């Protein structure tokens, strides 16, 4: 992310002044990873796309409240909005008493057997704490490096590595439990 520093700084400044072109450029840069972060937490691609739109609309509304400090602050801000939108989404689903739909396979580029494994993992991850789930999602779904996760969460890389290791151990134990 550090190579984008100057570009991000400039884009954020232009975004704050209401420049839609800068907003679109930011969207092009960030949307892929935000989408990857959302996808394992929802039932399908359409749902994820709806949430992606909401996240960026919120980013536009909140742009005056954001100040660029470094690249990590951009990722931190966008993931903060994403987590809030996901929490609202879950709350709405609970209020509407919707029966959770089975995850759709269109989220993954994998064969049917491998997708079965992913579904089992997703089920196991529901028993993890939010923080544990977060670090694994950022690592394996969004494809962020440990350094990038550390930047986005305002932690050191070592702390993220330790956290990641513990989260994996917990997930493994949960999956074994489920198999039994």
């Amino acid at each position, binding site marked *: 992310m550090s190579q984008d520093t100057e570009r991000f700084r400039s884009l954020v400044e232009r975004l704050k002044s209401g420049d*839609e072109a800068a907003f*679109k450029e930011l969207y092009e840069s960030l949307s892929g990873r935000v*989408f990857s972060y959302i996808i*394992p937490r929802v039932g399908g691609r359409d749902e994820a*796309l709806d949430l992606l*739109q909401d996240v960026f609309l919120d980013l*536009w509304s909140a742009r005056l409240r954001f100040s660029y400090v470094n690249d990590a602050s951009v990722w931190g801000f966008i993931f903060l909005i994403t987590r809030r939108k996901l929490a609202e989404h879950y709350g709405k689903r609970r209020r509407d008493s919707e029966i959770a739909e089975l995850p759709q396979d*269109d*989220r993954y*580029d994998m064969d049917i057997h491998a997708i079965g494994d992913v579904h089992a993992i997703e089920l196991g991850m529901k028993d993890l704490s939010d923080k544990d789930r977060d670090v694994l999602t950022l690592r394996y779904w969004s494809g962020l490096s440990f350094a990038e996760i550390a930047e986005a969460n305002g932690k050191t890389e070592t702390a993220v590595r330790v956290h990641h290791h513990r989260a994996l151990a917990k997930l493994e134990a949960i999956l074994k439990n489920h198999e039994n």
Partner: protein
Amino acid sequence: MRKLENIRIRPLSNEERSRAWNNIASQLPSTPVLSPFVFPIHKVVSFAAIFIFLIGTVSASDSSRPGQLLFPIDIAVERIESSLDSSSQVNHAQERLVEFDATVGSDETIQETPTAARMEKTAAPIAPINPRPSDVFLEGEPTSETADMMMFSVVNSGPAPTPLSDETEQAITTTRAALEEILNKALMGDDTQTVVEIMATIDEFETKVNTLRGSSF
């Protein structure tokens, strides 16, 4: 771990990215934009409420009298007026006098009791404790206490001063202080006529006080 590393999500396609962007862009104009010149409605309402409250308090304080809760606000507002316009000092002094009259006028003891009756009222309780000289000397040498009493009766051979209510005493103190403050300010200026008029008002006030106390000194 290996299973996790093998996860391959289907990335956001260009078509999906464009579709989502089109939806976002279509909603942007309706997105409220914070402007430094537009305040949120709750802030406007709060400011309006505070403004109305302050205006109401200042207006109400104008008719307050010494000793009342809003009287210090009245004085503060007049201080500001005086600093802007020195000619208002005479008006403020006269206003103090009017307020004093209103406060004292509401004191039933003073208002309803004529001066003579008041003197009788206050003299009556004193009379029995004034020993006649014959009583004192019949029983022996006068003690220092009885001598004091005798001295009191001699010195206060005229009508005794009328005790005023606490409210009236408070009004006298407050009004006197306010008038002195106005006079001091006027003395710092160069308008002799203003000083003369304020001093006349103070004289009038002191005359009223002396009348209330039932004495002419």
